């Protein structure tokens, strides 16, 4: 029998345990995508119960429903356009006053709201007394008390969803705006019952708040817009009047419902924060934690990846034998091209698993927000947010998890910016290529020049951050304004789901792109004949000299760079293949063929020029935008070209 579908939109402030609720309810029965045309993640999960299939859409964590953030626009459009049967609002019981602010806005869009009152254990430990029955009566909405991390109250929540769906008779109390009611009524006179699915009162409120999208809608739909505009602009402080009116309504609701103790107990969170957010102690702790995570991620990865690599090599050999019936070119294409791509992809499994395990720990315990607070000042120098620290640091190991970690940034533009900047961080393979060249050409100065590479990367991030922010994204650095959630013990189930989701989406979405790119590059380097000198790749290399000649590169170097796109270290093996030598032998040949200035220019160029195929695939996975993916490639290529051209000129003048 076909099940009856109940569509539920899951809404709530950030840090109220909304994802915990989502994961506890749906487990692995969920899939992740993006909101159409946005880089914002969309998660949908399912629960089956009796004759019902409950479809839960996890909306982004939000404080409000303004037009100022994409997350809030997505949420309000979802509610009015998708019209879910129910909106499930998760509220942090220990901060109920602030949390009800979102409810006051939801009430203007829909009546079908169920409140999940989460973290009641924390409310109790703070010795707050909340009369839930009374609150239910005053709001006219069902409330389910729960502790999501301990799986308390979730079954009741599901039962309540079904019960309310069956009864379908919710009739919540309306929000009273006090002094503002007169203004609202005056504005409402000018408005039809609904405009573009939005109710009249909502429109009136949003006009007073100065909501840009609502203003545009009204300007386009109303004939008497100018008169209306006059009324709205009569008072300068209308937005804050609306906000204050909402809080006064909340205060009235909570009066006699919520009782706070006179003397508040000092919570665990405060005691821990005394140290972890301390300017000195907190910074020391942050450095230790980040170093530890970096060290552990890459050392644990080393152990597993060498095992995995030998396993993948074995499989490659077996494949080679199995495919003996094919013509050699095809066999080689499948094994050395396609399978090589697949195994490169699979070799990322340990790294992503380990790193996202740690990141999930940081996020789930609540420490990530403190880290952002501590790092904010430092990151400001680079024109970035405190939250950018982790993605940047992990990128020194590998850009792929670095780009994936940008998900922790709320703002879409900040995220895109950081994704592009991430690829200027020299990952380990790039440093390996650089070290090879440095040790051959500048054995005495290798170390200091290596440091200069890191310096160049910082400069590049700094310059590019400024350019991209102003000219491309047209956004300014929004000042730090972030809630510090309560510390909690990490929940193993939540962490497991988090890591699994990351891994799954990486393998599926980034995987397809990577395998295709690697297949194409193989064909280019093995067509028309098997030797690389006559290949299409080499022809492209020779053609690109048109641009790369001013940098002093020969076609061999250019070809190396092109194959470095697949994996940065591949540029060395390609050079080896072209010159028919490797290691010191290759070094000697290079020494005879190019000047030290060209060598250093090459090192810097390969540091900056293009994110590797795996990173490009991840950028596509994260942004879900071909435009941004291509832009990232285009930008880093042009930046690298201009920067090294300049560098080359300067070096030619001064270097002897």
């Amino acid at each position: 029998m076909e099940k009856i579908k109940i569509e539920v939109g899951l809404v709530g402030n950030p840090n109220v345990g909304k994802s915990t609720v989502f994961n506890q309810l749906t487990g692995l029965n969920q899939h992740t995508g993006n909101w159409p045309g946005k880089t914002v993640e969309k998660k949908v999960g399912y629960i089956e119960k009796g004759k019902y299939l409950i479809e839960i859409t996890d909306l982004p964590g939000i404080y409000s429903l303004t037009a100022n953030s994409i997350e809030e626009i997505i949420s309000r459009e979802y509610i009015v356009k998708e019209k879910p049967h129910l909106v499930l609002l998760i509220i942090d019981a220990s901060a109920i006053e602030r949390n009800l602010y979102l409810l006051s806005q939801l009430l203007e869009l829909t009546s079908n709201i169920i409140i999940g009152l989460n973290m009641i254990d924390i409310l109790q430990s703070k010795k707050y007394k909340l009369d839930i029955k009374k609150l239910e009566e005053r709001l006219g909405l069902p409330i389910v008390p729960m502790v999501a991390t301990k799986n308390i109250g979730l079954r009741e929540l599901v039962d309540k969803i079904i019960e309310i769906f069956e009864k379908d008779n919710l009739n919540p109390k309306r929000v009273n705006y006090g002094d503002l009611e007169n203004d609202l009524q005056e504005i409402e006179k000018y408005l039809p019952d609904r405009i573009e699915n939005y109710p009249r009162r909502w429109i009136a409120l949003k006009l007073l708040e100065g909501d840009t999208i609502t203003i545009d809608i009204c300007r386009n739909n109303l004939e008497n817009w100018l008169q209306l505009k006059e009324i709205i602009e009569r008072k300068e402080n209308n937005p804050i009047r609306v906000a204050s009116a909402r809080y006064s309504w909340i205060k009235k609701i909570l009066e006699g419902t919520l009782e706070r103790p006179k003397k508040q107990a000092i919570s665990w969170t405060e005691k821990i924060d005394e140290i972890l957010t301390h300017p000195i102690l907190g910074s020391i702790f942050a450095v230790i934690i980040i170093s530890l995570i970096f060290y552990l991620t890459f050392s644990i990865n080393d152990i597993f990846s060498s095992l995995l690599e030998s396993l993948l090599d074995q499989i490659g050999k077996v494949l080679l034998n199995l495919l003996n019936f094919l013509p050699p070119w095809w066999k080689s294409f499948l094994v050395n091209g396609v399978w090589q791509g697949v195994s490169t992809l699979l070799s990322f499994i340990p790294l992503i698993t380990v790193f996202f395990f740690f990141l999930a720990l940081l996020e789930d315990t609540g420490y990530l927000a403190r880290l952002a607070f501590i790092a904010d000042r430092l990151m400001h120098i680079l024109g970035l947010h405190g939250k950018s620290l982790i993605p940047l640091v992990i990128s020194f190991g590998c850009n792929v998890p670095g780009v994936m970690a940008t998900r922790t940034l709320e703002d879409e533009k900040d995220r895109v910016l950081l994704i592009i900047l991430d690829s200027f961080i020299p990952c380990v393979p790039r440093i390996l290529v650089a070290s090879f060249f440095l040790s051959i050409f500048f054995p005495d100065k290798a170390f200091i020049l290596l440091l200069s590479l890191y310096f160049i990367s910082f400069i590049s991030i700094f310059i590019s951050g400024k350019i991209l922010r102003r000219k491309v994204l047209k956004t300014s650095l929004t000042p730090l304004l972030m809630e510090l959630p309560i510390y909690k013990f990490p929940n193993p189930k939540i962490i497991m789901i988090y890591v699994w989701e990351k891994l799954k989406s990486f393998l599926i979405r980034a995987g397809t792109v990577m395998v295709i790119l690697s297949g194409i590059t193989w064909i280019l380097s093995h067509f028309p004949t098997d030797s690389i000198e006559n290949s299409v790749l080499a022809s492209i290399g020779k053609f690109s000299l048109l641009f790369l000649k001013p940098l002093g590169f020969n076609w061999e170097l250019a070809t190396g760079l092109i194959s470095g796109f697949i994996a940065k270290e591949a540029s060395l093996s390609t050079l080896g293949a072209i010159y028919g030598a490797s290691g010191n032998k290759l070094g000697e040949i290079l020494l005879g063929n190019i000047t030290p200035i060209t060598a250093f220019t090459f090192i810097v160029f390969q540091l900056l020029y293009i994110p590797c195929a795996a990173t490009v695939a991840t950028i596509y996975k994260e942004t879900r935008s071909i435009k941004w993916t291509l832009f990232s490639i285009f930008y880093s290529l042009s930046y690298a070209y201009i920067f090294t051209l300049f560098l080359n000129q300067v070096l030619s003048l001064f270097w002897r």
Partner: protein
Amino acid sequence: MIKSVAEMTKGEKGKVITIHGGKGKILRLAEMGITPGEELILIQKSLGPVIVRVKDVNLALGKGLAESIFVEVEENGKNQN
């Protein structure tokens, strides 16, 4: 005495009097809990950013924001809570 949040000392309580800045910024602060008339406590001071508690929530505010929120504090109004 009226001063900005950036000038408050750790543990000090103050009542929000006014917030300088554009409508968007003032509204964003209000949504997070900081509205005129509301009482806040300074929990932590760092090299620029600060942490305040307002409406039972701890908020981290960047330097610029802290400088633009003005509060009324009582003289000798230090409070250990």
